[in-house]
C-alpha cells in the first residue's frame, strides 16, 4: 500500500478505509430482507478490495524508485529557480551549485555518470507537490529540515548538505557589534518566508522593537538595503554572502555574529521507498567519509589500487559488498568520488572560500575539524 502513488485512484477508493467495512459488518446482522443486498454489497466490496490490492501490489512490484530511475536512464532532480552557489545556471548554460552537485553525485552512484541527471527548477511553493506527485526523484533545493515537513508532508529528509542559519548584515558605520543592540532598527526582509517569523520570534524573545520593511523578491530587498531604506538586512547566512556581492561597497557592511535560527538544508525524497531513501542518504555519507579519509577525485584512482586502510577499501568497494544492499554497484563510493568528488571538493567548488561567495566551512566542517558534519561509518 505504501508504494501507491498519492493520487492513484486505486489507493483512494473509500472501501479501503475502515469505516465502510464496519458498515458492512453491521448490515450482515440486519433483518432478512436486507440480507441479500448486504451480501451483494459485501461481495462487491471484497472484489473491489482484492482488485485494489492487486493493483497496488502490482504497482509495488512493477517499479521501485531505483528501477524507475534506471529504466528512464536519469535522475530527475528538483532545484531552485536560482540561488547563488546552491543552484544557478552558469555561463555554459548548465546548472551549478551545491544542491546541483549533490544530485550529480547520486547519478554518479547509480549510473557511474554524473551527467545522467535532469533538473527541474521549482519555486518554493511547488517543491513539495512536485516530489509528492513523483515528477521529481529528489528535491535538492535548500530546503530546511523541520518536523512539519519531515512528518506531515509524506517526505523524508536524507541528511544535511549545508548547515545554515539566519543572520543579520548591517553597515559598519552603525557601530553595532551584536544583534542584541538592534532594538528599534528597521529590517529589510523578503515576504512570505520563515525569515520573517524567525525575526519576529527573536526580537520578541529579547524584548526589542523593530520595524519590518518587506519586499517580494530578494533583489528588491538588496537594492532597498543598499539604498539605505533600512538599517539591517536579514536572511540565511549563505544568502547574506550572495547578497553582499550585489552591494555597492561590500566592505562597508558586516555580518553580525548571532545566528538566530537553525536552518539545516538537505535533500528530500518521498515517503514509501526505503531503498531510494537509503541510496540518497548514503551518497552524502560517502562524500563526508571520503573527505574524512582524505580521498578525493584526484587521488581516488591511486587509492583504489594502493590503499591499505580498510575503511578506504570499504568506501571504494574493493572490500565488502556495500552497494548490493542498496541495489547499486559495489563501486558506488568510487564512482561518486571519481565523478563528483568528496564533500570538501563539492563545497569548495560551489560556495567555498575560492568562490565569489567566500563562505568558510564553519558548522559545515567535519566533526573532527570543529564543525558538526558527521557521517556514520561504512562497514
Amino acid at each position, binding site marked *: 500500500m505504501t508504494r501507491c*502513488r498519492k*493520487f*492513484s*485512484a486505486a489507493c483512494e477508493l473509500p472501501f479501503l478505509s475502515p469505516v465502510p467495512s464496519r458498515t458492512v459488518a453491521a448490515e450482515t446482522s440486519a433483518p432478512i430482507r436486507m440480507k441479500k443486498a448486504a451480501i451483494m454489497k459485501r461481495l462487491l466490496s471484497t472484489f473491489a478490495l482484492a482488485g485494489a490490492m492487486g493493483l497496488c501490489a502490482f504497482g509495488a512490484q512493477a517499479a521501485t524508485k531505483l528501477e524507475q530511475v534506471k529504466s528512464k536512464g536519469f535522475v530527475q532532480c528538483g532545484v531552485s*529557480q*536560482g*540561488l*547563488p*552557489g546552491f543552484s*544557478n*545556471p*552558469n*555561463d*555554459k*548554460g*548548465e546548472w551549478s551549485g551545491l544542491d546541483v552537485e549533490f544530485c550529480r553525485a547520486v547519478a554518479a552512484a547509480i549510473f557511474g555518470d554524473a551527467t545522467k541527471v*535532469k533538473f*527541474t*527548477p*521549482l*519555486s518554493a511553493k*511547488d517543491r513539495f*507537490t512536485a516530489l509528492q*506527485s513523483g515528477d521529481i526523484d529528489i528535491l535538492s533545493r535548500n530546503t530546511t529540515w523541520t518536523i512539519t515537513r519531515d512528518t506531515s508532508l509524506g517526505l523524508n529528509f536524507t541528511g544535511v548538505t549545508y548547515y545554515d542559519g539566519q543572520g543579520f548584515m548591517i553597515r559598519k558605520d552603525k557601530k553595532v557589534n551584536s544583534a542584541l543592540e538592534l532594538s528599534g532598527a528597521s529590517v529589510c526582509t523578503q515576504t512570505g518566508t520563515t525569515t520573517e517569523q524567525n525575526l519576529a520570534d527573536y526580537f520578541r524573545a529579547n524584548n526589542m522593537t523593530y520595524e519590518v520593511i518587506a519586499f517580494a523578491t530578494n*533583489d528588491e530587498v538588496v*537594492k532597498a538595503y*543598499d539604498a539605505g531604506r533600512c538599517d539591517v538586512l536579514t536572511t540565511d547566512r549563505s544568502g547574506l554572502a*550572495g547578497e553582499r*556581492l*550585489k*552591494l*555597492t561597497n561590500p566592505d562597508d557592511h558586516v555580518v553580525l555574529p548571532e545566528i538566530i535560527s537553525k536552518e539545516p538544508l538537505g535533500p528530500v525524497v518521498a515517503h514509501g521507498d526505503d531503498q531510494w531513501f537509503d541510496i540518497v542518504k548514503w551518497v552524502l555519507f560517502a562524500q563526508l567519509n571520503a573527505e574524512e579519509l582524505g580521498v578525493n577525485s584526484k587521488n581516488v584512482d591511486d587509492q583504489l589500487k594502493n590503499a591499505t586502510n580498510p575503511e578506504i577499501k570499504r568506501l571504494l568497494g574493493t572490500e565488502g559488498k556495500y552497494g548490493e544492499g542498496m541495489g547499486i554497484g559495489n563501486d558506488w563510493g568510487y564512482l561518486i568520488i571519481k565523478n563528483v568528488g568528496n564533500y570538501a571538493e563539492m563545497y569548495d567548488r560551489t560556495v567555498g572560500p575560492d*568562490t*565569489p*561567495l567566500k563562505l568558510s566551512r564553519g558548522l559545515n566542517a567535519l566533526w573532527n575539524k570543529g564543525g558538526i558534519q558527521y557521517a556514520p561509518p561504512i562497514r
Partner: protein
Amino acid sequence: MSMTFDDGTFIRNEMAPVLPPPKLRIGPVAWMRENLFSGIFNTLLTLLGILLVISVVPPFVRFMFIDAVWTGENREACLGPDVGACWPFIHAKFGQLIYGFYPISERWRVDIVFALGAVLLVPLLVPSLPFKRTGSLLFFVVYPVVAFVLLTGGNINASAFLLERFGLIRPFVGDAQLGGINLAFWVDFGLTTLLFMAAIGGFIALLGGNGRSAARTTLFVFLALGAVIFCWDADVGLSYVETRQWGGLLVTLVIAVTGIVASLPLGILLALGRRSQMPVVRLLSVIFIEFWRGVPLITVLFFATYMLPLFLPQGTNPDALLRALVGVALFSAAYMAEVVRGGLQAIPKGQYEGAMAVGLTWSQMMRLIVLPQALTLVIPGIVNSFISLFKDTTLVLIVSIFDFLGQLRAAFTDPNWATPVTLYTGFAFAGVVYFFFCFGMSRYSLFVERRLNTSHRH
C-alpha cells in the same frame, strides 16, 4: 510752392523687394513660440519637460555607454565605483537568453526555425509581394510542423491512436517496426479513419444529408492529420530535446506566436458565436468567454500545470509547455472575441441587409462583407491584445518555464556575475528587446491601418 511731378522722382519704377516676415513669425523661434511657449501653462509644461529630459537622458546615456564596461571574464570586471552597465554579463549569458538550456550543439536547429519563420513571415507582411495564398499555407500549416520537428527532434514514437488504447490492434499486428515507424499505429490509424468515415457518413445520411460528401470530408481531415503525425513520427535523425530544456527568447516567441496565431481565428469564431441567433451556440460562447475573462492568467497557468494532471488519467501527462500554450491560447482567444465583437457591432445594419438582399449566404456575408470591415475597424484593439499577450508570456515563469525574462532572472543568481549593476544592466537589455518587438508590432499595425483605411476616409 513749386512741385514737379514729372521727373519721376517719387514714382517707383521697380517692385519693392519682398521683406522677410517679422523675426517672431518664422524660423525656430517662431516655431518654439507657437508650439512650446504659447501660453503660461504650455511654457511651464515645456520647462518641466526639459528638466525631465536633462535629468534622465544624460545619466542614462552615461550608464549605458560612457561608464559601461564592455569586456571582462567575470564580476571582477564590473566592480568599482561609478561603473555603468556590465555588458560582459549580457555577453556571457546571451546564449541562455536566446535559447535557454537548449543543448549548445543543437542550437543551430533553433536558428533555422527563427530564420525560416522570418523568411516566411516577411512576404506575408509586405503587401506588394505576390503568392500570398501559398505563403500563408507555408507559414500557418507547413511551418509549425517543420518547427516542431526541428525543435523537439520529431520521432514522437506514436504507438497507439484510438483502437489500440483498448488493446485491439497489437495482438493482431504485433510490434513490427518499419524504419522507426510503428506499424500497429498506422493500422490503428487507418481503421479508425474508416470507422469515423462510416460513422459520420452514416449519421449524416440518416439525418437526410449528403453522407458521401461528409465521409469524404472526414477522410480529408484524417489524411491531413495523418500527414502531420507522420512528419512528427518519422525518425529524421535529430536528437530529442525536451521542452524542459527550452527557454529564453525561444520560449517567449513560441508562446507569443502560438497565442497570437491561435487566438485570432478562435476569437472570431467566439465573437460570431456570441452574436449568433442560435441559443446553444450563443450560451456556450458566452460561458467560454466570460469564464476565461473572469480568471487571471496566473490562475489559468497554475491550473493547467499543477491541477490538470490530477484530473487526467494516470500516465497521460501532457507536456508542461504544451499545457501553458493551450492555456495562453484559450485565454487570449476570449479577449480577442470581445475585441472582434466590438468590430461586428460597429457595422451598420444596412450592410447586413444589403448583403442578404443580394442573396449572399450567411457565411458569404460574413466572409465578404462584414468581417473585412469589422476587423479593419478593430486593428488597434487586436494589436493591443497581441502586444499585451507578448508581454504576458513572461508569467509562465511561475510554472517554472523560463522565458526570456525568467532566464534573465536565473542569470542574476550566478555568483560569478553578482555585482551592484548586474540587475540594472539585465533589465535595461530586456527592456530594449521587448521594446523592439512590441514597437515593431505597433508600427506595423499603423501601416496596415493606413493601408486598409479606404471605407472610412472622411
